[in-house]
Structure formats: structure tokens, C-alpha cells
């Protein structure tokens, strides 16, 4: 067998090793956010701005997904559907009032057909 055939075999093995998508287990179309920045909007009574900003970091980052967790199993792709959405959430702190404005890109999950057995 020539080297090129070996390479072809190798490539085929690589492609085949990507698991087929788990279609049918859960409908596609879920939306995911990847948060890019955040800001803190003071409530009444106003609290410490730096602490508010830091807690909003936690709040907004909790809405965000690590894209690797969605794409790494193979067969899943993220398609950007909206850029720079502003999502306002409550700070949800019993100690401090205020809101967090999270700026995020929105993605939808698409099942990659490439690795699917036919």
C-alpha cells in the first residue's frame, strides 16, 4: 500500500471517529449566549459600584457558555444568530439592589450532518 493510501485510510479513520450526532435525543434550536461584556446599573439605595460590577461579572458570566462544551463532543456547531444583544438581569443579591446589563452574542446549535451515518 502506498503512502497516499495510508493517508486516505488515516483521514477516513479520523472522519469516522467523530461520533454521529445524538439527533433525536433533544431537539436542536437551543440558544446559547456568549457574553462579551457587562455593566452594573445601580439600584435604590445605591451600593458600592465596584462590588456591583464584580457581582454582575459573576451573574453575566453564568449566562455565558464555553463554546467548547457544545462543540467538543463532535457533530455540534454553533451558528451566530444575533450580535451584541443586551440582556438585563437582576443582581439577585439580598444585600444590594441593582441590575446587570450583559452584552452577548447569541448562537443556535446546529447538528453537523457530516459525521452522520446514512
Amino acid at each position, binding site marked *: *500500500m502506498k503512502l497516499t493510501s*495510508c493517508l486516505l*485510510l*488515516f483521514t477516513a*479513520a479520523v472522519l469516522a471517529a467523530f*461520533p*454521529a450526532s*445524538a439527533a433525536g*435525543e*433533544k431537539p436542536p434550536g437551543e440558544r446559547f449566549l456568549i457574553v462579551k461584556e457587562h455593566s452594573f446599573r445601580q439600584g435604590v439605595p445605591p*451600593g*458600592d459600584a465596584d*462590588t456591583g460590577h*464584580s*457581582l454582575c461579572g*459573576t*451573574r453575566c*458570566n*453564568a*449566562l*455565558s457558555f*464555553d463554546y*467548547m*462544551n*457544545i462543540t*467538543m*463532543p463532535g457533530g*455540534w456547531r454553533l451558528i451566530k444568530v444575533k450580535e451584541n444583544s443586551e440582556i438585563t438581569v437582576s443582581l*439577585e*443579591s*439580598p*444585600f*444590594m439592589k441593582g441590575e446587570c446589563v450583559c452584552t452577548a452574542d447569541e448562537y443556535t446549535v446546529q447538528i453537523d450532518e457530516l459525521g452522520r451515518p446514512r
Partner: protein
Amino acid sequence: MNSVCSVFAFLFFLAVAAPPSFSADAVSAEPGNTLSKEERFRLGEQMYQKGILPSGKPMKAYVSDDVPVEGTAFTCTSCHLKSGMGSIEGEVVTPPTNGRILYQERKSFKEGAEFVPYIANYSKYLPVRPAYTDKTLTELLTGGADPTGRSVLRAMPRYELDDTELSIMLEYLKNLSDKTPPGVEKDSIRFATVIVEGSDPLAIESMLAPIQFSVDRKNSLAKAANVNFRVARMGYNMLGDLHGYTFTLSKWILKGSPDTWRGQLEEYYRKEPVFAFLGGISDRDWEPVHRFCEEKRIPNLFPVVDYPVISDSDWYTIYFSRGVRQEGEAAARYLGAMSTLFAGRPVIQIVRGTKRGEALAAGFRDTWKETGHGKPKELRLKEGEKLTAAMIAELFQSENPAALLLWDDEKLLEPLLEIIGKRDVTPGYIIASGTYIGKSLWKIPDSFRDRIHFTYPFRLPQDDFRYDQPLHKIVAGKKPLKHYDQAAIRQSYITGELLGKALMEMRGEYFRDYLLDTIGMMKDMYYPLYERVSFGPTQRYVSKGCYIVQLGKGENPQLVKKSEWVMP
């Protein structure tokens, strides 16, 4: 050369090019030889790993040619790693520094492995050089020039070492990753898995299934390669000599009290020395097995245990996480970020006096203290003692806590919900353990869900399903995945994956420390169960994260993240 020839060439190379034997005796004429062989080894190891001279002082090093640094900040281990087999980080390749390889000429290829891509690519990016001698190696260590005259000082320090120190160092390097370790034979590698009797049979079965699957698959490849030259060629091109190796997996059952385990392990090991322990399971202690591995220098990859040994310096056991206590630690980090708002109100832990309850509380307490918050107040419940709404109410009344940690199982829910439903005064935060409370978490009524936070040390279920596909393959032909222990089977899947990946990247150098060094150099991985597992040359708990979650609204609620996976 065709592949079959190259296989033979490689095997021939293995057979005739036995590594030169270096022993302490070879340098017995050197200074410092009044010390025993063991003592010289210990001192050499201390210099190599810690940068400390036999005198106890730090080694003196100069980095980037001219910056004086203490050897403790710039040890040999930092770059060449514990095994001496070198490292790859970003664009920087650090070559092996063990005597067996140093004292051989380095060519731009590895003989016999010219057509194995991952070995050939590695070899051609290291500069060629003649074989080192004691003299040229001394010049490298003290002057920073290799035998070709090339300076290495941009990346490697030069060290100030006297003759005795040099002879001890050279002797250490000559013995580093030199002798084939127990459990590795010409064409097979032996492994064992340690099972503590009394552990949940389903968890044992679930722990074993993925590891046995890996071993069986590997052995099928070796068998197929033996009878089919195309399989052999493909296997060889991908794995080098590893494709022909067979693996064995023995089950070592530990019975009785933990203080007898050591003797049992000794006996098993005497009868069958193994290269490494894979997995393993205990529903209680693991420390005796951990200690045995440290003493015998046996790697133990990922035992399925809730209470791993926590250490910054132990080397031989790699755990999935810091165990149950990691949830307590996460709760402390989450609350720590807002503690300036507590205005003197205390943080209180209600702790069930079980191993699990105590581990959660200890995790919280230690991290809370470490982050400068002092000691939290604690209320202990005996193992069978009933937690009542009145007890919680009394605490709220008398202490007015900023946060209440409830480390108990599902029994905490009834009194807690009763009290939350009735009273106006509640603490700022109520946090419980998602794993301790178990499936009851899903039964919390809608109106209470935003009042209680949970620690959850896994990827959320609504996201983890994407990773199920390979698990279905493991159980194919047996029973459905849902009938296994869901955590144990996923954990052991990770063990099987990492073992294969690590052995492949070892380039035929099957040394125990190198197995651990190789895992330490791996990139972050995305596997079932944990949001992310990450490694590092000395990191021993690969999943570092834990979410703080709440149960969402609705009839079929999902968990909702309230924090990131890892909090600073």
C-alpha cells in the same frame, strides 16, 4: 522502506540497541563517593527536582545568560519534568535529559520510527548533536553550550556546581528513566484496578466497564495486527510499537479494615508487579492505597472515590477532583465574592456528622479561612439526629446569618421548606450540596426554588447529554446506559480515554514518571460529566470546578447556573 520492514527494523533496533547501562559504580572514583549509592541518588534527586544542593543551599543559576536566580525557582524538573523525558509547551520543546538519551547521538529521526508521524515529527524538530560525554555534559550544565558549541542559554540556565555536586548530578541523570519499570514487558503492559470490598456493586461494575472496554479494544488491535499485515501497518503508522502491545487488567480486591490493606497490596504486588493502577473504587477511605502508590512509585490514574487524599506535593495518584469537599470550597468562593456586603452578619454551617457532611464543611471552612474570612460558625447534627424547623428558626432568630450552609441529605428539605415558607427573616443565602441532597433536589416546589442555592460539581444534565454517544458504545450488547452508575461510568470513560492518549504520546518510553509527566502536559479536555478537565505538570485534581445552581421554574425544571464553573 515499507512498513513491514520498518517494523522489523524498529524491533531489531529495540533488540540490539539496549540502552547503555550506567550505574553508581561507574563514577565511584569521583569526589563525594564516600556517600552510599542511595544517599547520592537522594541528593541528586534533590538537586534535580528542588534545586537544592547537597549542602542544603539553593543551587545558583544564571538564566537568559546573565540573570542570577536561585535554582529553587528554576529546577531541572521545571522544564525537563520529573522523568527527564522533556516537555513541549507552546513553541518550546525541551529535549530529554536522561543519561540513556543524552549519551547517544541525536539524529533528525528516530531509527525504526521514521514513518510513525508523531515520533518522526518530534525527532526532526530537535537539533542534531553528537553523544554527550561527562565532559561535554558538564560544559552544558555549567557553561550553557552543547557539544556542537550551540548556546542554550536563552531557555536554560547555567549552574554553578562544584565537582562533587556535578558528579552526583551526572550520576542521577544517568539513572533517570533508565531501567524498564515493573509491569512493562517486551510486548505487554500489566495494569491492576484496586477494588475495596463493600463498595456498591453497581458502581464497581460501572467503574470497570469502560476500562475493560479500553483494554479489550487495545488487545483486539494487537491480535488483528498479528494476523493482518494491513492492520499492523496502519496500527504501526499511528502508534509505533504500541500497536502490538497487549494489556492485562487484574482486579485486586481489598478486604477488611483499611489498616490491613497495605499488607494485601504488598502481597498482590509481589505476585504480580504492575506498571500502573487504573481506576479503582472505594466508598470510604483511599489513603492506604494512595500511600502505597507514593512509596512504590506506582501511578494510579483516577480512582473513583469521594474522599481523595488532598496534597500539594504527592505525585503518583491523579484524582478526578478534590472530591466531596470541592463543593464546600466552591460555596466559600461564591460567598467570598460578596462577603464585604455581609455587614458583620455571620456565616453558619449546619453539618451532618457523616463523612460526607464533614468533608463538605471542611472544604467550606478551609477555603473561607484561606480567603481571609475567619472561621464560620458551625452546628453539628449527629448521624441520626433529626433536623427540625425549630432548630433552623432558632438559628435565624439568634444569629441573623448572612448565609446558611446546610450540609445534609434530603432530610434537610422538609424543615427548611417549612421555615422558609413561614418566616420573614431568612438568611441572605441558603446553600446545600446538590450531590448530598441527590434526586430530592428535583422535588422542590416552584415557589421555593429561588430561595435555595446548590453546589453542583458536574456539567449540567441538559448539556451533558451531548457526550453520551461514546458511552452507549461501551455498554452496547450489555444493558442500557441508564442502568449503570451514571457518575462512575463517565468517570472511568475519562480514565480509558486519557490512558490511551498518554501511552501514545509517550513515544515508546514506558516509564512511570513519564506517564504522569505526559498527562501533566495534556491540553484541557472536554469529556462527559465534568465541564472541563485540565492538567499541569504537578496538578493532581483534574476537574477544578463546581457550579452554584438553582432549580428553574416549571414542571420539568432544569438547573440554572448562578456562577461560572471555576470561581477565583
